[in-house]
């Protein structure tokens, strides 16, 4: 978990990652973090605190919704789940990301 290993997140991608993580099932904040790290094979490390402003922003914009519930170890925790709007947005963002990375890949793989 040393900072030098950490991959910098592209601006705006955190939202996409959160939406993706939540789309697989309701999660609390710590769970979102763990899931992203897990899927990325521990390659991506997200600064713990910066997750929450992003969660609040997404909820404010109606992409996710939250509910208080019980965590695995019987603690009260706030669970986030994807809304219809969030699902649509995830599809859209994914498509955009794919297009973008395709273009960039194309540029980078160009040979003289």
């Amino acid at each position, binding site marked *: *978990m040393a900072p030098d290993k950490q991959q910098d997140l592209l601006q705006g991608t955190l939202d996409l990652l959160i939406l993706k993580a939540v789309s697989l099932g309701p999660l*609390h*904040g*710590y769970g979102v973090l763990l899931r992203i790290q897990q899927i990325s094979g521990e390659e991506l490390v997200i*600064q*713990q*605190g*910066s997750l*929450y*402003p*992003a969660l*609040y*922003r997404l*909820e*404010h*914009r*109606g992409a996710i919704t939250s509910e208080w519930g019980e*965590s695995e*170890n019987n*603690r*009260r*925790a*706030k669970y986030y789940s994807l809304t219809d*709007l969030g699902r*649509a947005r995830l599809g*859209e963002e994914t498509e955009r990301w794919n297009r973008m990375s395709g273009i960039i890949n194309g540029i980078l793989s160009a040979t003289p």
Partner: protein
Amino acid sequence: MSLRALFVRVISQPRSWMRAALGRERLETEMDAELASHLEQLIGDLVRAGHSPAEAARRARVAMGPMLVHKEEMRASLGLKWWDELGADLKYGLRILRKSPGFTAIAAGSLALAIGANTAIFSIAKSLLYDRLGVPHPEQLRLLSWHGDGNQAVHGMWGDFDDAPEGGMVSNIFSYPVYLDLRAQNRSLQDLFAFKNDGMNATVAGQAQRVQTEMVSGNYYAGLGVRSQLGRAIQPSDETEYGAGTVAVISDGLWERAYGRSPAVLGQTITLNQSVMTIVGVNPRGFTGAKGVQVSPEVFVPITMLPVIDPKGDKSLLEDPDTWWVNIMARAKPGVDDTQAQAVLSSQLEADVRATMQVKPGETMPHLVLSDGSRGLHAAEGMFKKPVAVLMALTGFVLLLACANIANLLLARGARRQREMSVRLALGAGRVRVLRQLLTESLLLAGIGGLGGLLLGYAGRNLLPALMSNGWERNEFNVHFDWGIFAFAASVTLVTGLLFGLAPAWLAARAEVSSSLKEAAQTTTRRRRGVAGKFLVAFQIALSTLLVVGAGLFLRTVFSLNSIDLGFRADHLLLFEVHPPARRYAGGKDVELDARLEEGFAAIPGVEAVTAATTPYIAETMGNDFFLPEGEKQDDQKDQAEFFNVVGNGFFNTMGIPMVAGRPFGVEDAATSQKVIVINQSLARKRFPNENPIGKMVKIGFGEENQARIVGICRDTLYASLREPAPPQFFAPYRQQKHVGGITFMIRTRLASARLVASFRDVVQKQDRDLPIINIRTQQEQIDATMQQERMFAALTTGFGVLALALACVGIYGIMAYSVANRTNEIGIRLALGAQPGQVRRMILRESGWLASAGVVVGVAAALALTRLVKSMLYGVQPWDPATLVAGGLLLLAVALAASWIPARRAAGVQPMDALRHE
């Protein structure tokens, strides 16, 4: 998708914001709980990974980062940051305002005054000049009037007529036969309807009173599109024949006042000039008849009742083609334009005049003019146009003055706070953030001022009409509070406040932090603001000079009017009127009634003397008649009519008018004895030069033989108005007249009128239960009423003038105090180099003196240009009156010097060492 995004933006996001902003405490606990739970799980995982609990906690905290910052960002995500900052700004702004209560009071006070006065006065002006009748689609209404070249065939008139601007005259009255013909032939407008307003004696719910009546044609309500709120309106079946239709519709106001809004009012009767009328309906609230919105007739009756309830002369007005009196209106017909309709109606009018009247050779035809009827007869326009325009100009100046004052105050304060702003910027505040802080403060100040202005304007809109009408005639003046005007006045002042509040802030925010914290740079920015501030103060002084000169002129006018020699004793004189209806008191019965009433009043304890007159003095009423001394022939080329007054036998004694020669009237002048008259000195000089008029016979009046002998000459008195010099007059005793009509009783007493009114009523009711006594006032009140406009302007200009002086005083004090504080260093050096304190004081006073002089010069120049416009409203003083101008200018100079005395003394008292150490 875009629809969805819109839904989120419009509904979901504000809802989320509202939930967060309102459930603030819950939000904070949830945030804390969520972060705490995260931390806990992280620590748990770290412990499981083999760290000691203490080490795990440490690592977890490091990984989490600063909690406060995260929480702040979470709040920002919900859009709460802006809200929180606003709260902080408001709190800080309030603290700043509280810290300088003087500044707050003056700034908010002048804002409130400017907004309030402007709202009130513009509301009144709008109501007087632009308010439309309370009927559906008033813009469709057309008023019929006519233009005559001065030789028109119309002679007998009862109603309004005016000089036309293009020469000749205009009037909106017609004869009834012409109305009927026009209506029958009319194809160019919708149905013509007729109406006429008059005052009548009424007994309503057992109480005799004077009411305003509108006599209306049967199609009037249908034409106006007005429906009664209770019962029915007057309809065509009410005017089937002349003298028919004993029904009345009453106003909402009378219904409330006399019947307490009881539905049982229908079917009750009122007596109108001795005719019993049945109430069949109540008008809707806000309907003031067709005459205009400034009048409020209380009883509406069919116009066919006119010969019965309001006979004028021997002939029924409904059949008389020679007396023009009735007002006509109609709605425009769709598709017919006004010029077309006017041309057609004009030729019809000419034909109708020729058909109904005998037109003498040389007489011309009136031309019909079709004008906008949406404001009724426009009667108020002519009467109030000038005073309202002057009032509006006055308040406009006050608005300017208040704006200048606020600008000055805010500029000064902005400059004073430049250092504070620099410090804030240096500590890391964003420029936008600092600007927003200042904007919030300005808005807060503006808000307080605006609220005050709203209250003032709301209260003031009814205050001015009260000042403009007299105390004894009920006038339901309809001024609505106008939100549009309030918004206008408020935005003008608020924009000024924001502009001048933000300008220095903007400069401060742009200034380089380091440079404005340095001493040297400060003086350059302050110099610049000094120029703007001085200009504003000079402008304030100029406006104040203008207002003070105006106040001086109006005060002198009132003073001149008050010191006029009336020619009679106006003190302790009580006036009231009795109008015996012509039908009941025909054939001289009214003369007998007057005599009995005079005796009755004289018997009341406390009454010193009683008399009566058909023309009360200084009441803008007059009457004239032919006056032909024996040997003089009637001559159409010469004006042989003279003002007269029909009076009681004790008139000269009661009024305190001394006889110059001969005798006054006495008991010997009875109905059957030789007819006598008294003339005044002016008449004696005018009609009897170089001869003794006493004993001469005079033929009075036109037509019937009415010879009277001159028995005395009295001293001159004023007649209808204070502004006219005493005209020639003659007097005849009412006891020798065949018919008198309405008469004013004059009672000399030292008791207050309130204590006597009941006794007067008893005396009248003993003679006639249905006869009201009306317009009870003292002679002095009567005189004051004719000076109302002058007094109102004197009061307003004085009030505004004092206010302007106070504001100018604050302005000049502020700017000089500021200048002295800024120059402490310089003054210290001067004193150290040997300047005397007196020299320093003079230097400061000289500076303010120049400033004030510049303002005064501009103000006097403006006054010279503007006061000419109110020349017709002044009396006994010229608009360029040097005394007033000089006094106004000197007053301003004196005030300016007095206001700068304290800063000057402070400057002179500076200790050189302190001053040099000062910065």
